[in-house]
């Protein structure tokens, strides 16, 4: 879509675009270009000498079992976050769409965790699950569970998944609720007249019609789990124990900032960039076309 009526000026549009373009070039394109450039180089331990090594950093990366492990951890983590985040919020949104009384109050009380920073969400849940003083730990110990996420990798994973899902439910809930409210009531009524019960109506009418929303949220949640959960992990497990929760983004940070391995960290950045580009393309192609029946 284009405007028919436009203004003419030789310099004004460039001046208006200048601040945005300047920021993107200096803080986005230049660093991204450098990440690609560094990924082809090898630096000695003091950063005095750099040598062009081609694809060697990438080859090493994919031979490194710890990097492959981090891929696996990221896959498990993002699938768990996306699955539980979507399932719980779909249940809540379906219920909230049904009730007449108190709908606004429920909505208000369910959306506020969106405002909580991921790092703060991590601290809140780490406190509840703290190995010696946590209140949930106390209950779990009463049930005979040996709870200590500082030692057990699977429990650490569970902790970061819970904190990440808790923060994301409000977002998914709002989009599911909007999706549910846009389904024509006449379809549901027709099915009810034909004798379909609530469960049948949900699975044969509502759920298929909701598929564009679900697919969109799936992509958004995977992106969230890949990148925005950095704060959750840094404030709780810091990738431990024994890298059980070291997702790719955390590893880039760990190798680049803490271990100062410039080439290796940049190669990881480039791999991540490729993943983001892939996810963005998927999101735009499918969401624009609206997956539907």
């Amino acid at each position, binding site marked *: *879509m284009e*405007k028919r009526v436009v*203004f003419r000026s030789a310099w*004004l*549009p460039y001046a*208006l*675009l200048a*601040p*945005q373009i300047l920021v*993107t070039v200096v*803080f986005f394109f*230049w*660093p*991204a270009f*450098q*990440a690609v450039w*560094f990924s082809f180089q090898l630096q000695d331990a003091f950063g005095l000498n750099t040598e062009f090594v081609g694809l060697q950093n990438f080859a090493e990366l994919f031979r490194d079992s710890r990097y492959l492990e981090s891929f696996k951890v990221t896959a498990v983590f993002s699938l768990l976050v996306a699955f539980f985040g979507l399932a719980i919020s779909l249940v*809540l949104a379906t*219920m*909230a769409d*049904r*009730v007449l009384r108190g709908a606004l109050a*429920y*909505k*208000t*009380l*369910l*959306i*506020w965790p*969106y*405002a*909580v920073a991921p790092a*703060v*969400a991590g*601290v*809140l849940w780490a*406190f509840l699950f*703290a*190995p*010696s*003083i946590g209140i949930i730990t*106390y209950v779990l110990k009463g049930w005979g569970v040996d709870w200590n996420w500082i030692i057990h990798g699977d429990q650490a994973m569970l902790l970061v998944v819970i904190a990440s899902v808790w923060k994301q439910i409000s*977002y998914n809930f*709002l*989009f599911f609720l909007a999706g549910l409210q846009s389904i024509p009531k006449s379809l549901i009524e027709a099915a*009810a007249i034909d004798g379909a019960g*609530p469960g049948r109506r949900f699975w044969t009418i509502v759920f298929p019609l909701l598929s564009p929303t679900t697919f969109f949220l799936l992509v958004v949640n995977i992106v969230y789990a890949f*990148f925005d959960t*950095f*704060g959750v992990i*840094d404030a709780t497990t810091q990738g431990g124990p024994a890298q059980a929760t070291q997702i790719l*983004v955390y590893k*880039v*940070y760990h190798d*680049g900032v803490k271990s100062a391995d*410039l080439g290796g*960290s940049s190669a990881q950045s480039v791999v*991540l*960039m490729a993943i*983001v580009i892939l996810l963005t393309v998927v999101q735009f192609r499918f969401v624009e076309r609206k997956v539907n029946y």
Partner: protein
Amino acid sequence: MVENRPFLTFFSHATLILGVVAVAFPLYVTFVASTLTLEQILEVPMSLLPGDQLIANYSQVLLAGSHKGSAAPVATMMMNSLIMALMISVGKIAISIIASFAIVFFRFPLRNFFFWMIFITLMLPVEVRIIPTFKVVSDLGMLNSYAGLTIPLIASATATFLFRQFFLTIPDELAEAARIDGAGPMRFFFDVVLPLSKTSIAALFVIQFIYGWNQYLWPLLITSDESMYTTVIGIKRMIVGSDAANEWHLVMATAILALLPPALVVVLMQKWFVKGLVETEK
């Protein structure tokens, strides 16, 4: 409602109440912990009823910080968070609205090229270019400054899109009338476009304020000076060891102070928040 099923209605309410309680539980425990003494928290299990240390704990963190971790007062951190959130939200809106104005209301060489340049930034989140961006900011001498905290984050593809979508819906007649009356483009921008964009600006502001307030990785990298910490970073710096070694009563009070302002913005400006969330994702 399609039909009356009392049991299903009861079940819906029960599920929602369970959801609300489960979502609020961590917040409640955090609040209770922030009103207890450290000794009371370390008694397992801790009490689930608020104690009497509310004023003592909050004035301690606000004015003096923690004992073991960062000793910077949280009041300073909250001021830093506020400045960061405001500069990011206002900056993003300002540079995006003029950029989309140029793209929609002018024809000039390289217009599409610039539009795609802004679009591509969507694919370059801070997380994938940590080290090189840090180097750029450090080379420019912007470490430990508000400029360094905010300027690298204010480019916004989503805000530019949102304004572009909205500007495309402004009737051509308005621009035509303005031109016939002899108004230049900037006059048209300030007198027509800006007032019409009020609701979009409000919606974006809410979303970007929360985004700015909750930044974590970026301030973690570029602030080493305690006086430049934001509240979210402050919490992280107060956690010195694991488990019982921390001053949990102070950490929890700081956590409440870190989440209260953005949570209030969401709850009080709910209408704008929902609008902003739904529209920025289009």
